């Protein structure tokens, strides 16, 4: 499903964020990416939706070499990926409902079907009764769940989340992880970056450990 071969990423004017990273994530697999701050977790995740492009090596998602995709092809790649950003990137000028509706507007879904999907996604993360609220009125955990609802509303086969439990208390974090597990159970491929060791140990899933831009065995 996702395959990195010998991927390096150097930012202009900076050091090498990733060095010769290779791994393959099978369809339906659930893996954590871990490592200290600055180890390259975010960079690794950003290469998958081609927010960043590798300086060397290739990133293949669903059979497509995403590092070589033209700009015009990127929207179609991203619509098939569920992305949860480290800073969530919620829009505070509209309701919870409209935040989740945003990705459906791009693909031109029939309005009834779109509304149904938005409610289903909100229901899945337990925010259905808050659909008229502004995201600013939500707690940190709720905002994170909203970001997840928006990521899955297009029913992607792959879900990529960057530090989805950062700054959350243990209970909220567990609730988030439970949501991810439920997606895993219906066959969604998951890649989640976290530095929360306790969380990783509790779930006993595959771990990609990054250190200084390199993947530890």
């Amino acid at each position, binding site marked *: 499903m996702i395959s990195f071969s010998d991927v390096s990423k150097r930012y202009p004017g900076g050091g090498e964020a990733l060095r010769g990273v290779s791994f393959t994530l099978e369809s339906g697999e659930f893996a954590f990416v871990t490592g200290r701050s600055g180890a390259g977790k975010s960079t690794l995740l950003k290469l998958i939706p081609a927010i960043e492009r590798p300086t060397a090596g290739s990133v293949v998602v669903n059979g497509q070499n995403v590092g070589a995709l033209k700009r*015009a092809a990127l*929207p179609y790649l991203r619509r098939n990926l569920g*992305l949860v950003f480290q800073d969530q*990137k919620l*829009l505070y000028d509209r309701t919870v409902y409209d935040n989740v509706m945003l990705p459906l*507007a791009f*693909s*031109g879904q029939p309005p009834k079907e779109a509304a149904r999907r938005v409610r289903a996604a909100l229901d899945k993360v337990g925010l259905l009764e808050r659909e008229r609220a502004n995201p600013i009125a939500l707690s940190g955990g709720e905002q994170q769940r909203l970001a997840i609802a928006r990521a899955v509303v*297009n029913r992607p086969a792959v879900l990529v989340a960057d530090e989805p439990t950062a700054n959350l208390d243990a209970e909220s974090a567990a609730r988030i992880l439970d949501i991810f597990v439920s997606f895993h159970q219906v066959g969604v491929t998951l890649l989640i970056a976290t530095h929360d060791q306790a969380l990783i140990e509790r779930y006993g899933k595959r771990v990609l450990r990054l250190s200084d831009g390199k993947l530890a065995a």
Partner: protein
Amino acid sequence: MMAWLRQHRDALARAFGKLRAQRSASLLNALVIGVALSLPAGGYALLANLQLVAQRFTLDPQVSVFLKAEAKRGELEGRLRRDARVVQLRFVSREDALQELRRSEGLAEVVAALERNPLPDAFVVRARDGSAAALEAFAADVRTLPGVAQVQVDSAWAQRLGALARIGRLALAALAALLATGLVAVTFNTIRLQILTQREEIEVSQLLGATDAFIRRPFFYLGLLQGLAGGALGLAILLAGLATLNQGVRDLAQTYGSSFQLAFLSGTEALAVIGLSAFLGWLGALLSVSKYLR
């Protein structure tokens, strides 16, 4: 096809939403565009009216030859008939001229007040060559003939008016071009500000898989709508301005016994103004979007 239509309807709705969200700013923008448009449109309307007046009086290349009271009509007529430059010759007796004057607008009372006929006999000559120079040369020759009191090139002032109107049109074209540029600049800047205030939404949309076309579409509609609103407002300003002017024109025309009124733009012209305004708005949006959306 349905999806495509829905996307456009959706973009239009989003553009309307943005206009609504910034009601006063949108209104001010439309007003700026409207005022800028009303100037050349008003100038155009006035010139069109002026041309109408000029046309009403521009006849053929016609020269009036007024005779002295003691002139020998037969001899003069013979000389004029032999002149190769003359196409047509018509004699207007002083009685006929007075009759004609009596029928013409606003002069009936004046004629009625006359004790005796002050008009001379005249020949109305139509010349072969209608150019101003040829007519003047012909008039100068005729002036030297015996029995001729005065020669008048009737179309001269109409030609002068025409020339004036041509200069007016040129100045108007320059003004229109300048204001059109200004209009594009206004929309350009409005859309630029819109893009800046929506940076976040645009960024998130790009990350979540919006195509460039999807992101740009509402901005195009925004420019278009603003142009439309500005065009409509400009016409309204023009209509109000002409109505005000017409009050004065009516009073003035009445003193000449005329019912002359300034006419508004024709339906096609009014549509053209609105269409042009919408196009310029769209153009401003296009320039702004291609510069600031990447």
